């Protein structure tokens, strides 16, 4: 482990320092490139020595991420990164542990591990690159694909509902839930910093374009023409405003969100719902701006930190128990453990 003095003495790292010597092999135009770039850009600011950073990924296009970071890392097996990362963090809580998964890796084969990771609350940052498709296996629909998705394995359209990842995470007791987008570098950098600062499992869903198998799925939220109308950029303490000319807002009528036109009927910014990251009830409502319609209205898709709560981490709980017991009872010698409580002697 590096001491603080050593860290201060070391020259500040640059984005390049975090690039491994391996050639990056995603398809041209893949949204994963942007995510890699933003991660490499913000990491020097975190001030964590490279040797203390560990990336654990599952399998999929997204999961190749690990090979491209000049940190420690394990590219593991499909869906299980959460479980492996739990073991890493349990054993050495000093490591800064990051995970990368695709939507299939996180929510399909890894769905069980995902929910348990959220509830356990290790201090781990989990980046899920959601392209709403299985990229690596060449284009089957995924558990986040919209109903009716026509893909390789569903030539006549899928017949099932997708997961809403933010709701899933909240339901599983995530302590940090955020969403960002490959095509909004500044926003992604902000969310990555917030995730890094959060003590507990930070779940960051990143909408990622797969130009090969699911091109343009998120363009409504990223392209100039539609972006402002379709997305809701959340900021703690700020009112919920969206629209082409910031002309719309969201009000709460009891627990029912209502879209109002700020240029009509004397609607005022002062009456709008002010985002409170720490309000779980409201976080559930915001997370629900996904496939829920109120009176036939589609709500804008929220981006930013949807929810954050502060609670002890798993590894702290685990270590504290050990420390308290050792303080109270002392560490038994191996001889004592070997003999147990009841022995007899044969002379």
């Amino acid at each position, binding site marked *: 482990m590096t001491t603080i003095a050593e860290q201060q003495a070391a020259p500040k790292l640059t984005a390049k320092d975090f690039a491994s010597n391996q050639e990056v092999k995603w398809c041209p135009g893949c949204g994963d490139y942007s995510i890699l770039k933003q991660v490499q850009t913000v990491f020097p600011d975190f001030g964590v020595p490279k040797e203390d950073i560990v990336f654990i990924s599952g399998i999929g296009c997204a999961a190749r991420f690990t090979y491209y970071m000049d940190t420690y890392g394990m590219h*593991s097996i499909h869906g299980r990164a959460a479980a492996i990362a739990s073991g*890493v963090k349990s054993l050495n809580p000093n490591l800064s542990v990051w995970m990368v998964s695709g939507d299939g890796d996180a929510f399909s084969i890894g769905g069980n591990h995902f929910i348990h990771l959220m509830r356990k609350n290790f201090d781990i940052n989990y980046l899920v690159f959601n392209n709403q498709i299985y990229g690596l296996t060449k284009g089957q629909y995924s558990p986040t694909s919209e109903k009716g998705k026509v893909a390789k394995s569903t030539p006549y359209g899928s017949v099932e509902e997708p997961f809403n990842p933010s709701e899933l995470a909240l339901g599983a007791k995530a302590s940090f839930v955020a969403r960002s987008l490959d095509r909004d570098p500044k926003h992604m950098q902000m969310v990555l910093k917030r995730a890094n600062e959060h003590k507990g499992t930070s779940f960051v869903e990143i909408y990622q374009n797969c130009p090969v198998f699911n091109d343009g799925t998120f363009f409504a939220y990223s392209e100039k023409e539609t972006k402002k109308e379709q997305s809701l950029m959340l900021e703690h303490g700020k009112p919920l405003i969206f629209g082409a000319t910031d002309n719309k807002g969201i009000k709460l009528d009891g627990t029912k969100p209502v879209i109002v036109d700020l240029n009509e009927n004397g609607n005022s910014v002062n009456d709008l719902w002010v985002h409170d990251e720490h309000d779980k009830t409201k976080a559930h409502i915001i997370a629900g701006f996904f496939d829920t319609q109120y009176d036939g209205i589609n709500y804008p898709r929220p981006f930013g930190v949807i929810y954050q709560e502060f609670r002890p981490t798993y590894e702290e709980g685990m270590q504290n128990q*050990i420390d308290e017991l050792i303080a109270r*009872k002392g560490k038994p010698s191996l001889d004592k453990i070997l003999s147990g409580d009841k022995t007899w002697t044969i002379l």
Partner: protein
Amino acid sequence: MESVIDQKPGHVTSLVEADSIVIRFSGDSGDGMQLTGTQFTDTAAFFGKDISTFPEFPAEIRAPIGTTAGVSGFQVHFGSKEIFTPGDEYDVLVAMNSAALKVDLHQLKKGGIVIVNTAGFDKKNLGLAGYADGANPLEDGTLEGYTVHKIDVTKFTKECLAGSSLGMKEIERSKNMFVLGLLFWMFDESMDHTIAFINEKFAKKPDIAEANIKTLKAGWNYGDHTEIFVNRYKVAPAKLPKGVYRNISGNAATAIGLVAAAELSGLPLFLGSYPITPASDVLHELAKYKTSNVKTFQAEDEIAAICAAIGASYAGGLGVTTTSGPGMALKTEALGLATILEIPLLVIDIQRGGPSTGLPTKTEQSDLMQAMYGRHGEGPLPVIAACSPSDCFDTILEAARIATEHMTPVIVLTDGYIANGSEPWRFPAAADLKPFKVNFVTENNNPGGTFKPYKRDEKLSRPWVKPGTKELMHRIGGLEKQNETGNVSYDAKNHETMTRIRAEKIQKIADYIPLAKPDSGKDKGKLVVLGWGSTSGAIKTAVREAIAEGYDVSHVHLQHINPFPKNLGELLSNYDNLLIPEMNCGQLLQLIRAKYLLPAIGLSKVQGLPFTTSELKNKILEILKS
């Protein structure tokens, strides 16, 4: 130890000396037979007898009361001679109800003693046990040829506790203590150990403690004052090697072995596990060792359990996962990852009857092929097996040594029989255990260039670097790696090279393990019995008996199954005949035949039960006489 009550018999009995005795406590799951058996065992062990036990539980926690499905048994074999098995047949059967008698009578020795609780033989209980209307084994001659003691244990317990503040349910629950007291009297054993146990267990519930002790003494006094028992039996202490002993079950030995392995290797211990019979007790036991800095992690499933253990090993710990057959199957994919990563990991499979849920509370050795070949792709791994409860300790140390020195997952096989069974253990002193300190790599093995995570030493084992180590950052993963650099490589020749290196590395372990030698008998002759795992006690007993009777037979027992000891083929070919008994359909048999092309004979048993000595001996004699 000072005796609490006058142990002089109240009536004239004769004290019969016996070499060894087998008692079977049998009753409903709720009758406390496991506790009764354990207490008897602890006392007998404490007074220097050699011991082997065999607890047998039903698969259902609360099977319908009174039915044969709900019978729970505890068999203890204790003696003044060396004891290696819980015994083929019992000298004494305690049957607390009709179902218990029905299930267990068939293994009572001719002329043996049966003690029945008559309250368990009323019309209702007989019906529940499946006896035909009007039939009663206590009256219809079923017990002819046995010495039968019919006692209304339930009634005596109630009488003894009349006026106690306890409810009727709790009073009835004490009836096992009456039986235990009676058995202590019969075998001239002291009650002190059990009294101390009760006082400790119910320290916060003194009325329950008092009731139990009162009933225990009542049982003793019943034997002492009624004149129905004419004989008491005395088993002298065994001539065991001098030293300090404790009683140990296989699962407890496994847990302690893991704590010791952590200390000897200098690694922090991490157990990832998901509950499954009969492996859960290792998780329970280890969870108590927090003061030894043990981290236990109850995962959401077996996949997560092994993956967390892999993560812990990757981070520089001794990663361990415990399970049984079905869980082992779930771990298979991750085991492939650990194989290609080449990191230390202990995977402990405490086998039970399968496939699927099979016979979850019964024993079997049927996961050997799964351990040997249960991988996708070419991925041989070391497989080692424990042969007795206390041997689980040594086997775990051996597994941890191999895992860390050879940078590989190791599969350890035990089974329900030795996991739950117990025996006296002359435990080692910590100072006598050989350390195998792990030295993590902190220096670049490619000075001036990039660190090479797959550059190997003379064992073909690769460097173990903990994340957090300066300048040695590198990535590992499930994709095939370029030799030495560890970079992803899809090169055809490289894959073949790496596949062969990984296999050779495992084969090379044979240079670092002991040679095979006979456990009993000579190193050549007419017949060798080759065993592995928990059959050891029964084979040893059968072979030694046969040798004593003048037969030419030897016993070789394997701890290392992959790789086999280097001389195994040569040793086995020194005998005219080779017999391999297994609690499966012949899995080691196939391995041995395939590897050494020897015409081995199998003896197979798949009943969820261990071999009896006589089953083995009959087969040995059959071969020798043919």
